[in-house]
């Protein structure tokens, strides 16, 4: 199992290729930590937020910063897409695939949603059934060929287009100081300086401001309850390692401190763990008020204040982190 599908998938391919590296290190070097708020978007029925960088960026950042090479493929034709996957599996090459989570029949129905950016590793095939290592499952799972095809070739936003990749090459040596420094400085830039009001710390403040308007988007109280409780799911359940990736990033900082001999990162890791505890409070609060249908203006204002508070502490945190890594 891993905390998150993309970082977990990349980590498992790197580990399989012989590189001993942890998921937090992959996540941190890839500048995975982020925030974005989407109040109105064509792809979403309701306002929502993200807590990581754009799907696919972790892999490309790891290539740039570690010097690893992944061989990638995408396809217009599902038959050719399956043939290529089968050829790779015949050569015993574990292959990552991007899929729509909705078609993964091994997932309990209450977890299945249409999201085109789930990553898993296909490790083999027997008859018409693929063997899959999915970061969110403790054991290997199986999926029939038709379901995998539907998942790989689903349409819509960020459609997978049959995308698969595998490890091609590892570098002889890795400059972890350079990789970690770059990973952290980019993460700080995106959190603090990106000039788009829905992204980074600005996005967090936008979320805090706009969450009090959520009732007007809901069909009824039940719908609003569902969407408010989804805040908990997005922060804790959809593969974040807890507290919207803040716990995993804190782990990265602790590991990085030892790896590149920068003790200040260890202090910052402790600070981020506490920041994560604050996000956890938001998760629990959202679940509670949603369950109790206690969703009046006062409670939403309190939720808003809690989010504003996270924006303030994270702004201070990332400024300190940015200075620490220079």
């Amino acid at each position: 199992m891993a905390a998150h599908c993309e970082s977990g998938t990349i980590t498992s391919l790197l580990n399989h290729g012989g590189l001993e590296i942890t998921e937090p290190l992959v996540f941190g070097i890839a500048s995975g930590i982020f925030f974005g708020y989407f109040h109105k978007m064509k792809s979403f029925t309701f306002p929502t937020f993200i807590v990581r960088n754009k799907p696919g960026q972790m892999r490309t950042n790891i290539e740039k910063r570690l010097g690893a090479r992944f061989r990638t493929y995408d396809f217009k034709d599902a038959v050719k897409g399956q043939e290529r996957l089968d050829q790779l599996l015949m050569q015993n090459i574990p292959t990552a695939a991007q899929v729509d989570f909705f078609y993964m029949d091994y997932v309990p129905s209450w977890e299945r949603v249409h999201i085109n950016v789930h990553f898993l590793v296909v490790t083999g095939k027997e008859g018409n059934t693929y063997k899959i290592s999915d970061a969110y499952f403790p054991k290997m799972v199986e999926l029939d060929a038709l379901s995998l095809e539907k998942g790989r070739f689903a349409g819509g936003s960020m459609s997978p287009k049959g995308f698969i990749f595998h490890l091609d090459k590892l570098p002889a040596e890795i400059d972890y100081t350079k990789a970690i420094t770059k990973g952290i400085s980019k993460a700080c830039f995106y959190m603090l300086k990106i000039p788009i009001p829905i992204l980074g710390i600005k996005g967090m403040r936008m979320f805090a401001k706009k969450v009090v308007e959520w009732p007007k988007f809901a069909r009824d109280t039940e719908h609003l309850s569902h969407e408010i409780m989804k805040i908990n799911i997005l922060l804790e359940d959809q593969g974040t390692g807890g507290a919207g990736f803040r716990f995993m990033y804190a782990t990265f900082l602790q590991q990085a401190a030892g790896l590149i001999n920068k003790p200040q990162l260890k202090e910052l890791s402790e600070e981020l763990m506490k920041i994560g505890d604050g996000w956890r409070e938001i998760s629990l609060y959202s679940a509670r008020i949603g369950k109790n249908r206690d969703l009046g203006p006062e409670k939403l204002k309190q939720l808003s204040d809690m989010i504003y508070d996270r924006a303030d502490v994270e702004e201070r945190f990332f400024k300190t982190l940015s200075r620490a890594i220079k």
Partner: protein
Amino acid sequence: MKEKEGFIDYPEQQMILYVEKDDGKYGPMQTGSYISANYMDDYVYKRRNLEIDLREQLIRGSISPVRFYMVFEDLTLSELAARAGIRQSRVKKHLEPKLFGKVTIDELRKYATVFNVPLANLLQIILIKDKESFESSLILENKADKTSVEQSPTPNPYVVLTKIEERK
């Protein structure tokens, strides 16, 4: 978060949480989902009520089957159109009960793929008796106490095999 604070006993949905271990090191811990462990009943309650509400509208003819599933599966119009590979203006027509009759079999097959249901299920409602009441197959899946309802695809893309039998 300390390790003992983060552990939830819920084998049905496991995840990895990063926590502070006893020795002060941060690391992964396998645990259950907090929200599923504590609020699953509420989630099922809301899903059931949503399905009943949409089903009643569908039976009355106030909404079309495409709108039923679009709302139930939380898709926007543009997302549904993109996933189905059907022009958005045409999907919009199919959302209207009076215009739904213009849909082609092939378009129904595309919608069925997006919703991951057999094509036949766009034109029928399956209720299964569970204990004393009838429950939608969308909520119950195939977990009714006494009746098994299994639907499997056939080589014919327009035909599904539905087997209904008494559980032994």
